[in-house]
């Protein structure tokens, strides 16, 4: 009890500091622009950004774009995770396949995704699917490597024990290999989620008709720095909120860990 209360106070202090850091940074930004030390044309100012955000919220234009970006990210995350986990599992279970494909996996992972974006636009069009595809290429490799590692890393003693207790190959996969890999997969969920959003936004940025990336690209096209920063703010806030949710989920799923 004592220690949980102590950690609760510590969490409170951390939160207070987190808010303080943000407040100081924003205040400094606002002050520097007001004093004329920074040019509002290049860096906008927090008060303008706040005004712009409230306009978006009141007029409702924000929600459509946000929904599009989140939809693309989520689809990319799900498809990328499904593919990455299946391939990671397959490769870990058949070392020969893993060795044959090893150089190709490395090659594909080294391709800068920005290079792929125009190709995907060409293949999948201006709609959401070219963005989903881009998110998939990012999420896939994170999930793939983590699953591969997680399965390969499964404790030999646990495997032997479960086999001695009577497990078939399928039961071994279900009771040991998948849970063992899941700990790695869950730990990479934060990274994957971030990558999925990056994929979606970069895709929108390079060619789209909706989404936060599109909003930012439009604003940049007219040197509207306030719009650019407002778009970035929305992205940042969304990532923080979603991350907190993922953290809770992760804690619950990995509750067996000491």
């Amino acid at each position, binding site marked *: 009890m004592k220690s949980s209360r102590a950690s609760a106070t510590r969490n409170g202090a951390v939160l207070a500091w987190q808010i303080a850091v943000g407040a100081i940074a924003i205040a400094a930004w606002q002050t520097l622009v007001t004093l004329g030390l920074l040019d509002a044309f290049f860096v906008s100012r927090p008060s303008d950004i706040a005004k712009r955000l409230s306009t978006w919220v009141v007029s409702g234009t924000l929600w459509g774009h946000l929904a599009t970006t989140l939809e693309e990210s989520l689809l990319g995350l799900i498809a990328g995770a499904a593919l990455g986990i299946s391939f990671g599992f397959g490769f870990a279970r058949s070392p020969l396949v893993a060795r044959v494909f090893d150089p190709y996996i490395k090659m594909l992972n080294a391709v800068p995704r920005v290079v792929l974006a125009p190709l995907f636009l060409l293949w999948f069009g201006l709609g959401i699917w070219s963005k989903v595809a881009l998110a998939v290429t990012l999420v896939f490799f994170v999930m793939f490597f983590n699953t591969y590692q997680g399965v390969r890393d499964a404790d030999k003693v646990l495997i*032997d*024990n*479960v086999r*001695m207790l*009577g497990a078939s190959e399928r039961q071994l996969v279900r009771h040991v290999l998948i849970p063992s890999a899941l700990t790695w997969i869950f730990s990479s969920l934060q990274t994957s989620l971030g990558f999925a959003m990056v994929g979606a936004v970069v895709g929108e940025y390079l060619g789209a008709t909706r989404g936060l990336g599109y909003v930012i690209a439009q604003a940049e096209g007219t040197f509207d720095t306030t719009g650019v920063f407002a778009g970035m703010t929305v992205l940042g806030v969304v990532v923080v909120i979603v991350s907190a949710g993922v953290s809770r989920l992760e804690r619950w799923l990995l509750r067996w*860990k000491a």
Partner: protein
Amino acid sequence: MTALELESVSRQFVTPDGGSYRALDSVSLAIPAGAFVAIVGPSGCGKSTLLNIAAGLVPPSSGSVRVDGEALSGLNRRATYMFQQDALLPWKNVRENVALGLVLAGVASADANARANEWLARVGLSTFAAHYPSQLSGGMRKRVTMAQNWILDRGMLLMDEPFSALDVHTRQRMETELLTLWESTAENAEFAEKNDSLRAQRTLRLKKTVVFVTHDLEEAIALADEVVVLSAGPASHVVARHPVALDRPRDLFELRTSAAFIDLYRSLWAVLRDEVIKSQRDA
């Protein structure tokens, strides 16, 4: 009847530098059903390899293994194996871990859980059923592991230094609990044999055969009916077999200071000492 029979079993391993290491050299050993046999030897003598071969986890390079008279191929389905390291699944709670073997065998989960609860009561961990292994002490984890193995009620228990990671007192307690469990099933078997001839055949198997590997001679003598001494590696072989004629049930807290125990210890240590010295000279 012979529960486990090894006939000139040898095992080589490929070393990382491409050479080969002969862990076991022509080991022959017959263990009668219902016996508690301890295998001792200096570290690195191939004790665990021997046990892995008996379990079917590692095939012998040459020689044959018979379990209850039948040649062993693949895993030994008549045995459970208690490993030196923790082998409980960390993502399953205590009850799920104990019930695991039953679930794997296709027992309905309500039934499996009920039987797991019975076993948890027997090892005194009923209140910890919903805990995860990481929340238990080392001794508790061993008790869960024992329940996990014993719930399957297989005829043979293979144990690879199961208590070596525990502190001395916890270890003695676990040894006592092991003997109590083992002796209680042996009594059940005899009782059933006398009173129910129809069930006699089945219950005979209830008297479990135990193969207990340890490097601790004291532990070996305290627990076993017979102590087998393996030579220092490489190319370990059986150098001595010695019966332990101490009465059961044994009081492990008193036993170690009794004259009979000390005599046994002295004569076995005379054999084991040479092997330990050999193993340390080579190391």
